[in-house]
């Protein structure tokens, strides 16, 4: 089954160095509930180096969410911090990891792009 949640972990696990996480250390465990089943992922961060693993294990922060909701977060349709505030997603452990993790999520569809991609050249310099 491929969806936004899988794609997110695949992207993160692709070994790309992510500067957003460079000061972070720790393991974040994701428990994604799908009916009676639970899917578990771990995101292991060591000074910007990221590894992704399936299954349970030691962690510094646990995020629990409904799998469908998490997929919407991973697709940028739901804001992760707002979801935590309303209790749709729960966090146990170091909340800093959540703050850093949510920065890796995409934004919702937008009308606007950065200048570099939107335009070429500057009118007046």
């Amino acid at each position, binding site marked *: 089954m491929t969806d936004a949640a899988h794609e997110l972990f695949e992207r993160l696990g692709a070994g790309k160095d992510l*500067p*957003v996480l*460079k*000061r972070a250390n720790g393991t974040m465990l994701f428990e994604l509930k799908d009916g009676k089943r639970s899917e578990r992922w771990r995101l292991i961060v060591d000074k910007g180096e990221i590894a992704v693993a399936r299954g349970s294990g030691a962690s510094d922060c646990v995020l629990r969410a409904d799998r469908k909701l998490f997929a919407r977060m991973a697709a*940028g349709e739901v*804001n992760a*911090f*707002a979801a*935590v*505030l*309303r*209790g*749709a*997603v*729960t*966090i*146990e*452990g*170091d*909340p*800093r990891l959540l*703050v*850093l993790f949510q*920065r*890796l*999520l*995409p*934004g*919702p569809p*937008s*009308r*606007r*792009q*950065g*200048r*570099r991609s939107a*335009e070429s050249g*500057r*009118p*007046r*310099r």
Partner: protein
Amino acid sequence: MSGEVVKILDGNTFVVSDDRGDIEASLTDTTGLFSFDTRFLSKWVVTVDDQRLSSLSVDDLQYFETRFFLVPGMGTVYIDAKLSVIRQRAVAHGFQEVLTILNHDEKPVKLTVRIEAASDFADLFEVKDALEKKGRYENRVERGSLRLVYERDTFRRSTLISSSERAKVDEDGLTFQLKLPGHGEWSTELDVVVEIPGYAALEARKGRRRTMEANLDRWFAGAPRIECDWDPLKRTYRRSLVDLAALRFAPPVTGGRSLPAAGLPWFMTMFGRDSIFTSLQALPFTPELAATTLIALGEWQGTRIDDFRDEDPGRILHELRYGELTAFEERPHSPYYGCADATPLYVVLLDEYERWTGDRKLVRELEFEARAALAWIDEYADLQGTGYVWYQRRNEETGLENQCWKDSWDSISYRDGRLPGFPRATCELQGYAYDAKMRGARLAREVWNDPEFADELERQAADLKRRFNRDFWVEDDEYFALALDLEGKQVDALASNNGHLLWSGIVDKSKAKAVVRHLMGQRLFSGWGVRTLAEGEARFNPIGYHVGTVWPFDNSFIAWGLRRYGFKDEAAAIAAGILDAADFFDGRLPEAFGGYEREQTKYPVQYPTACSPQAWSTGTPLLLLRTMLGLEPLGEHLVVDPALPARIGHLELLDIPGRWGRVDAFGRGRVEIDGRPGARRTARTTARRG
């Protein structure tokens, strides 16, 4: 009869009650127990034998603790009380209240003590806007405790109330039946705990009080000491340190370290702009605030484009909130990014922090964030493609229209009072961008080991300065326009923003003298300080929020700007005016005061605001101490170049922390302040860094 409002707080948990300690809030009323932007108690009323209490006195013990001395009865004349009631309350993840009843009679007495409790769980935004609630309420009696619960879908907030003495608990409160012997005493500890499930970091932190007291002692021990012939300055300094301590705020993501929140109590949260400005003001005194501000704002730095939150990659947040409306994305504060100045100011703070502390480790760690902030200036802020920083909200429903510090609807106007359309490029934003590029260049060269990037930034800065001095300069009257409108035309009102331009260094040396003449002239300088908008402009109003009042924070940065361009006496005149005003407010400067001529009113007329103390007003006397003493890091040393108002006499600032360890600075007042020094004297023009 109890109109007096008492506030105590710890971080973003605070209690606002009347002077009896009671809370009786309506939806639009602002009393209550608040935490994480939610009201957890809207009713908390003590009665003895069905009688309300009257206040004899209130002792503010600490910013987080207060004590109420009360007697039963509501008489307006002298009450011959046989009973006293003492409520001692300390905020600590909710609050603890020790309720004591003293029987002054020889005879024993039987009493019914009742505490009525309820909560509307209003979001702070709802208190402001009086909105309807969408969830449901339930009050539960649970094993001798009362739990007030509010639920909406998965959102849940609750308040747990318990007592050390046995109480009869019902859904509306607690009742104690007691027998007090002659001259006897009874007391119970009431524990009110705010509960936010699912966010473990917010859960109970018991026994915080002792830590908070030790913390306050350490805070004072760590700050420089002051010796001064002029007592009001000593009082103001002490007041500033106490208030700054109260304004510290440790959001759940900073590992217990504190940064300054914006204002007490309604703005006890992270604000990009306010936290940065206050950290800059406090750098010579408490540099650790700057470090936490940089780390926390860096961790929340924008990474994506999100129109609802006005977020872009590299953008520094404007405001973070935790309430119900934010939780359901009915408000964009999770966090909201709609401000145009915090991002360049982030780089300014990072550089200034390194110049004072020598903490290159942090500058290396935040290299990515600083580079992303610098990239934002060119890639996302230049909405018109003209090489300037512009702003226009994308969230048109709940976003902020004006994304500069003068954020009220009428703050940016032409001389004739017309308001420009959007986007707008206000002048001070260009100054901050210039300064960010110059300072970023220094960091790139000296810390990040990237001389090419440094050269590029300096090239861009020089180009920006050249264009700015051409495009914003109002030729006929010789000052910088408030903004450019979307057609690139000057929004030509004269405003205090000119002072921030001096601070940023973007002003051509040849133009500085004319700018200073305006700042210290009749139209802008009131005698207390520089007005936000000049007298004579169509929208000028001495009690208009950003269109005529004097803002202490604004003036502290203007004074810094004057020093930067060598106008020491003028900087001293501003310090003298603002510190005089501070004395009228017992050392606690308000956010703003009236822009009336000093001669006319003799005392500064306070502008009514909801928040006091306000962080950047609290930081103002600190920055003014810096500008008066002329403190400036130079390599590994601290340069002291005092220019003090004569009245201050001898001034010593001892144990100033920094990369030099601790050093002392001394100065003696020599600048005669006779109203308007800049207007009368030939100004000095020895620029040091401009």
